[in-house]
């Protein structure tokens, strides 16, 4: 994983120097995951490709905001894809200020040894299985939040529960995902305290 992070850090450096071929390499590494994410949100392949195109152009333009020590290029790219995809489908809601959203995303996209280790070790189908093993209400909350772009308050409204409960479901879901992926490898992902084990009920 460190290697992967190292490759990405070097790519970020080269993209920062204006080397278009480095952006091409980033595309070759992540376009298929980016397209899958965009397609999951927007539902149309043509529109999903437009989203991926916009996202890579945004990373090219804004690369100077990215710092390898403070973030994961892959995680940021995927968030930039998600921001754009969600912006397309939320015509019914206020549009997203994408520049602002991309910058905010930088601060919550790692790098984090726990999740990067899980990503490096688990296959896509294992991660999929871990998601599928979540209780329905937790998986639904994650899907509404991540793939449909709803805030925890909106998830609460949509599912008819208090905001604290929606937030608690997201928290439990991430805890279980971590646990499941930890279990799949037999090795600890990271030394840490267990996170909240019950819904806050707020």
């Amino acid at each position: 994983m460190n290697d992967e992070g190292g490759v990405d850090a070097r790519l970020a450096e080269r993209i920062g120097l204006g080397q278009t071929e480095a952006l091409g390499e980033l595309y070759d590494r992540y376009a298929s995951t980016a397209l899958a994410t965009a397609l999951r949100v927007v539902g149309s392949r043509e529109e999903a490709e437009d989203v991926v195109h916009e996202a890579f152009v945004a990373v090219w333009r804004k690369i100077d905001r990215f710092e390898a020590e403070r973030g994961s290029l892959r995680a940021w790219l995927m968030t930039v894809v998600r921001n754009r995809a969600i912006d397309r489908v939320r015509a019914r809601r206020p549009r997203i200020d994408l520049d602002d959203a991309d910058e905010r995303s930088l601060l919550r996209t790692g790098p984090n040894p726990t999740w990067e280790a899980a990503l490096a070790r688990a296959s896509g189908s294992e991660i999929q299985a871990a998601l599928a093993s979540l209780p329905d209400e937790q998986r639904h909350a994650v899907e509404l939040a991540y793939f449909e772009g709803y805030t925890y308050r909106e998830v609460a409204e949509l599912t008819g529960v208090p905001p604290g409960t929606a937030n608690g479901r997201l928290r439990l879901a991430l805890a279980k995902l971590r646990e499941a992926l930890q279990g799949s490898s037999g090795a600890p992902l990271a030394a840490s305290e267990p996170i909240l084990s019950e819904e806050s009920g707020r």
Partner: protein
Amino acid sequence: MTCERLDELAASYALGAVPPDEERAMSEHLATCDQPHADARELIGAAGLLPAALPPMEPSPALRARLMATVAATPQDHRRRAPVNAPVRAEPRRPWWQLRPLPMALAAVGLAAAVGLGAWNLDLNRQLAERDEALRAVASADAAYAVAGSAGSGWVLETDGQAIFLADALAALPADQLYALWLIGPEGEPVAVGTLTDTEGVAFATLERELGSATTFAVTVESGRVDAPTSDPVLVASLEG
């Protein structure tokens, strides 16, 4: 934003499911709080896992070509924002050419020397038809040093002791300013080696001195030819190694 509230919302934050104002407050809190917030930090990055749970989809081959064409025509924000009109800082400080290392990321610049010259050359060949002298220098250069910074990027090429500076798409300057070129020796003293005003297309200038023992090449924005730089460099190259 209290510590308690931040810990409570950490999972929603990690999934990008907190309203923008609250998210900004959480980021600021995490950046400045002296509490460890280990649980919250542990969750950051979790969202990166979710795309991996989807079966990958191969994009159409046309998408890559479209992207590369767009990118080639799209300036990066940090080049667009070249601080060519930035006021000179008033507080007393050591001049940048005496700082070790130089204030710009020389280490990162070195990387470009190994990669990218080939691609850049192709572009250059197309644009430089009328500048035979520069083209010959590129073709026969004994050494090439990557130059980069906020104003753009380029190369210092050395052939038979003569050095030229080449740059593609340098940030344009107001009519009353020019790019001043400097060689900085091992003692940290800058020597003026020319100026550059024409930034249209591929810009180039023959340096007035050999590289000799110079360790750094730098470019500043000045209002005329001066004996010593009056502003921070907008381009630098390490000439060592």
